[in-house]
Every structure is written in structure tokens, then in C-alpha cells.
């Protein structure tokens, strides 16, 4: 018999945030319970207007060991990095 509830990752959209942001994880018996727990654990100070939960085991993640093959090839292709443009002050933060 499994005695531990499954682990859930919690994503919350803040009052003025545009997208859901990962805020942490918690344990719960099912998705509905995970949302309630997230409400109690992560929104006590009115942090959010929307909660997503996803079972941690359902997330496919890249492996840190493959950092080289995955990311390094882009480093020497400087033309991919938009560092050669002058941004007018009026444009503000990009």
C-alpha cells in the first residue's frame, strides 16, 4: 500500500501577472485536493487569481547532464542574439 500522497507542482497567476508561475510543490490525494492545498499553502496573502496543479510525475524534464549538447551550440552563433540593436529610450524595457 502506498502511504504517501503524490507530489504536485503548483503554478499561480498573480494579480497582475500575465502567465502562471511555478511557486512550489505539495502533496495531495487528487487534483482537487491539490488545488485546495495550494490555496491554503501558497495564496494566504492574496497572491493569486488562478491556480494550476500538475502531478510532478507527469512533467518531462531535460537532464542537467545534457547541458552541453542542448545549449552550448547556440553560444557561438552570435547573430542569434539580438545584441547589435540600439534600443531607443522611448521603447522602454524590452
Amino acid at each position, binding site marked *: 500500500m502506498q502511504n504517501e*500522497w503524490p507530489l504536485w507542482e503548483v503554478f499561480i497567476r498573480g494579480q497582475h501577472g500575465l502567465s502562471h508561475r511555478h511557486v512550489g510543490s*505539495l*502533496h495531495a490525494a487528487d487534483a*482537487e*485536493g491539490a488545488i*485546495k*492545498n495550494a490555496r*491554503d*499553502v501558497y495564496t*494566504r496573502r492574496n497572491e493569486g487569481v488562478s491556480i494550476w496543479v500538475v502531478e510532478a510525475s507527469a512533467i518531462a524534464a531535460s537532464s542537467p547532464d545534457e547541458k552541453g549538447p542542448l545549449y552550448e551550440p547556440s553560444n557561438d552563433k552570435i547573430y542569434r542574439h539580438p545584441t547589435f540593436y540600439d534600443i531607443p529610450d522611448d521603447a522602454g524595457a524590452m
Partner: protein
Amino acid sequence: MSDPLFEFLCRMGDNTLVLGHRVSEWCGTAPVLEEDIALANTALDLIGQTTLWLNLAGEVEGRGRDADALAFRRDVWDFRNLFLVEQPNGDFGQTMMRQFLFDSWHRLYLTGLTESSDARISAIAEKSLKEVSYHLDRATDTVIGLGDGTEESHARMQAALDRLWPFVGEMFAGDAVDAALARQGTAPDPAKLRSGFDEQVGKVLAEATLVRPDSDFAHKGGKTGTRHSEHLGHMLAQMQWLQRAYPDATW
């Protein structure tokens, strides 16, 4: 009989005060972190409601007592809470069953109070109702989850229900205070809420595979202040000692 409005406000405030304190006793010792925080949130909601009810009670009484004075400077015989809420926590299942039974009544009663002829009361009811609806949601899920759970969790939930059922009847037993308030349109007649309660609780118990006890015998006297169980005095000793030992202490 003292002023019915003052009595009524003490009943509301004492229910949330005593249950809030009881629930806060779980802080740091709940079975899992998530429940620990959820119970602490529930306790804080209830204490917040207490502040509103008892401050209004003090205002109505007009003798200069505020919520703190009423909460910490009255002795056990002046408390007007239901028997149900002063019952000890027991195991986690018993705490959640107590919460479920109280919330089921509380939500119905507060819903009635949002129509109160007294605007101060309807405003407090309106605010509390949002919190209490969530408490009830949570307690309902737990009662169903544990009732329709393992053999052990089922047995514990049935035992909790059997133990607490004799305290249900008091929530619907009206007295002269209730009658006076119902006449003025200040508060609903509690007896009229029973059928709604039975229907709603019956559905949840069925889903939880729990059996409603046969006997509707009810302990009475808590809300009228005639008597309390031995547990309340012990709880108040814990809750009030600081204000008793160091009156008017501030920090």
C-alpha cells in the same frame, strides 16, 4: 433574560472563538504539512469572525467591553457556545467530523443572517459566509475521503460521527432569545434550518459510506449557558491565562 441581541452576538462570537481555539490546537501537529496550514487558516478565519461578533456584542451592551474583554475576561459560565465546538479534538478524523457538522449548520445559519434586518449583522454574515463555504468544502472532501477510505479511516470516521451526533440537535433547538430575534427579522429560526441540514449532511454521509446514528438525543445547555462540558473550562484556562496573569498586558 438579558438583552436578546447581546445574547445572540455572544453565541455567534463564542462559537467561532471556541472552535477557532480548538482548531488552532492542531498548529504544528497535524498529520501532514498541508493540513496543518489549512487548519491554521481555518482557525484564523474563525478568530477573525470572533472579533467582529464580539466587538459588536460589546458595542450593543454599552458597558465599554470590547472583543478582547469578552473573550479573555469572562469565565466559563458566561460562555454561550454550542456543546459541539468545545468538544476535544480527538484524532484528526474527529476534528474534521466536528468541523463538517458545525460548518454545515454555520453556512445555513449565516446564509439566513445575510437577510438580517440589522445591517451590522448582515455585513458580518456576508463576510463570514465566504470563509465558511470554503471550510465546509474542505471538511466535506475530508469526511468523504476518510469515510470511504481504508477500513481503519472508515471505522474512525464512523466512531467520530457516533460520538458527535448527540451534539447536533442543540444547533437547531430554539429558545426565547431565538424567538425574539426571529420576530424582529434579526436572525432565522434555527428549527427551520434542520431539514436543509439533514438533506445536505445525509448526502455527504451516504457518499462517505457512513451511517447516521438512529438516536436524535441532543445534549443542550451550551448556547443558553445553563451548563458546559468539563472540557471548556480546561480550554479557557489555556486560552485566558496570559490576560488573567498579566491583565492589560501589551506587546
